[in-house]
């Protein structure tokens, strides 16, 4: 790694993004380049892990290591990477469907374990890659190819979920405000433990309701005096009073990361044997 500071463009891979013109994910990608450069992150020492979806193509566009896994499985794979080599920086990226529909069962567990990775969701309230079906964050009543008479489901609330799951850093940003996103990604990357960043990122191709235009009047920053150590208050705000989309850091806490706890286990365990493998074999002598 060169000692010189890296520019955002230095994080660009040779693969050009395959997203539609106007896709909100471009803003996220550029913000990530920016955040990485501001932290002068070593791209050789970073792994971006994703599932399947438009947003999950992310790793291909960044000059880091990466894994484009299966639909919904970004988090378990990302966790494996981090635990096998804690020196690596690990980021997981994906969509609302990938993260909170098929992958929804994994989120609580990485949160409660507090594995030190940053999870970035690009929430477009739609399944983009499969061409426009309702996603778990879609509004009730939304018309899509599989809900021609309107969706009968109430949307999930990823922010509130991650808060009660025990995530130790929870933030929200908006693709129309890439500077803030870059700042949030930076904070998330510097946070010790699991950080969740929910990004509102419109899909102009298949979601004609939740557009940049429509979000304009809905997005606002969290109150200035928001106390990011107050979990119940963070949940209350995440439950979305007044239908506003509030951006910023909802919650942050200083909690030992999973790695710290695993290290403790290893040091406890190592007291039980001095002889390594041979000592283990001895346990089975009759």
């Amino acid at each position, binding site marked *: 790694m060169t000692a010189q500071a890296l520019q955002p463009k230095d994080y660009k891979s040779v693969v050009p993004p395959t997203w539609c013109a106007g896709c909100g994910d471009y803003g996220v990608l550029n913000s990530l380049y920016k955040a990485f450069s501001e932290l002068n992150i070593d791209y050789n020492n970073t792994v971006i892990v994703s599932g399947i979806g438009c947003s999950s193509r992310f790793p291909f566009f960044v000059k880091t*290591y990466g894994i484009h896994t299966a639909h919904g*499985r970004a988090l*378990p794979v990302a966790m494996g990477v981090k*635990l*096998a080599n804690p020196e690596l920086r690990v980021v997981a990226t994906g969509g609302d469907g990938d993260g909170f529909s098929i992958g929804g069962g994994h989120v609580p*567990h990485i949160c409660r374990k507090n594995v030190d990775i940053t999870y970035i969701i690009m929430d477009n309230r739609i399944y983009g890659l499969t061409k426009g079906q309702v996603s778990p964050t879609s509004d009730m009543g939304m018309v899509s190819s599989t809900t021609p008479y309107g969706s009968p489901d109430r949307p999930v609330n990823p922010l509130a979920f991650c808060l009660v799951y025990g995530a130790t850093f929870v933030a929200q940003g908006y693709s129309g405000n890439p500077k803030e996103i870059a700042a949030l990604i930076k904070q998330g990357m510097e946070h010790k433990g699991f950080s969740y960043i929910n990004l509102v990122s419109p899909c102009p191709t298949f979601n004609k309701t939740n557009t940049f235009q429509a979000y304009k009047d809905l997005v606002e920053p969290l109150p200035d005096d928001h106390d990011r150590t107050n979990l119940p208050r963070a949940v209350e705000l995440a439950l979305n009073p007044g239908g506003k989309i509030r951006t910023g850091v909802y919650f942050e806490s200083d909690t030992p990361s999973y790695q710290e706890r*695993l290290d403790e286990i290893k040091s406890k365990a190592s007291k039980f044997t001095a002889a390594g493998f041979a000592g*283990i074999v001895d346990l089975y002598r009759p």
Partner: protein
Amino acid sequence: MARDDVIIRIGGEGGEGIISSGDIITGASAKAGFHVYTFKTFPAEIRGGYAMYQLRASSKQILSQGDGFDVFVAFNNDAYQVNKKELKPGTVLLWDGPEGGDIQPESHPGVISYAVPMTRIAKDELKAPKAKNMVALGAISTLFSFPIETLKENIRLKFGKKGQEVVDINIRAIDMGKEYVEKNIKKQDPYRLGEPQAKDKDVIVISGNEAVGLGALAAKVEFFSAYPITPATEIAIMLARNLPKLGGTLVQAEDEIASLGNVIGASYAGAKSMTATSGPGLSLMTELLGLASIAEIPLVVANVQRGGPSTGLPTKHEQSDLFTAVYGGHGDMSRIVLAVDNVEDCFHLTVDAFNLAEKYQIPVILLSDGSLGFRTEGIKVPDPSTLKLIDRKWFEPKGGEEVYKRYEYTKDLVSPMSKPGQPGGNYVATGLEHGEVSRPVYTPENHTRMIDKRFGKLANIEDEYKPTEREGDENADLGIISWGSTQGAVREALARARADGLKVAALYPKLIFPLPEKAIAKFAKSVKKVLIPEINKQAQFAELVRARTGIDSIRYNIYGGLPFPPGDIYNKIKEVIRP
């Protein structure tokens, strides 16, 4: 004539200490220098239902759990009822009576019956009803010459940390069982263990599951993630205790999909990685196995088979996951499947599994099974210095400006893999079809070429890995091909049949897929008929053999949740050779 080969079956209610007392007498016997071989079944429920522990012991070598039992120890009436039809003339019934228990034995002509009032002694004399199992051990040891002193030594070791009182009660229980027998019972049976061999210091008594864990440690596993499931949980338990001692990481994941996901990530990051599960978990892992296959990520999945399908018979034995291990998963998905034969194999094949996974950059499924996983055998202490460990073909950047070709078409079709952290080796692993440079490529030519690569890299595995073992006569009238833990019964049956003068041979493939076709074809040619015994309905291995080689076989399938008794295979051999 004294019989220095005794099969003792202890049956009772789950929770009565059947399993733990069995483990104690097994350990003591092994420690005293006897050969031991156990077999256990549990009820699928925690409580209630029948539990069974069977120990075969001898001063000579033992190959299988044997046929039926020589001695049946009945802890309660349920167990007696389940087993009574197997009481044949010459066998021994040792039962909890004549007072105190709930058994009222019928008359069994020719069966030698000994009554020991274990419940009464434990309850009334010892005031420790739970010590019933120890009373039984005292009686058993006295009757059949098990090493009672070693037994007591082990009880002292085992219960020592629970306090002197507990030790004393258990030792007294053993003595009372012994005294009762000495005072009240006249031995009428021939079963009596011989002189144990000179104590071999290099023996451990270990279950199949624990041996898999030990093999993984010997192979230098660094990462293990699993979700509990019967009968595979003991692999995780063994590693939970021991892997962190060696600096490795163990995770209990939220489900089997997550555990395989963890393993994929860890292996991508460069660690030797493994998970362990049983049928239902393997089914759930099917999708992610495909990711590991196409992205060429080395990993090991130990699958301890149980009765299926679905939840099936979770605590019983079956060899019915072969089809899904070999064929499960959408698309043309390459993989390696190994099957373990016995406890020693559990150790060595786990090492092989890691070696093959790392060498070919592929997921390896190791098929074990419930009866092997739970049973303990005395095996030679493994010496890790004699093991050859294969490391991944790592990518070493040459420092130029070239793009790293993760899936380079090399001569052996295995491509150097980059370890994250190093400059010049950056790439994105993906489940999409990709080119030599790991990026999505959708052309027909590329897909064809990459599928050919993923299967082609295994083309010579049969020559590179010696995956079969042959025993028996050269031009045999019958050749048996046996996979997995049916091997022990086949070996024993073969020995008996050959002692009778029958010309029989057997082939034991450890590699199931890719099938060692050359060895099998050669073997089939060398014998008049081929017999494939296996414990499943669909003749899964016989079908695979016919699919891959066209070779027809006589099929012998049982599927009742129990392993093959060697006598049944012996009878089958006779029936086939001399119809």
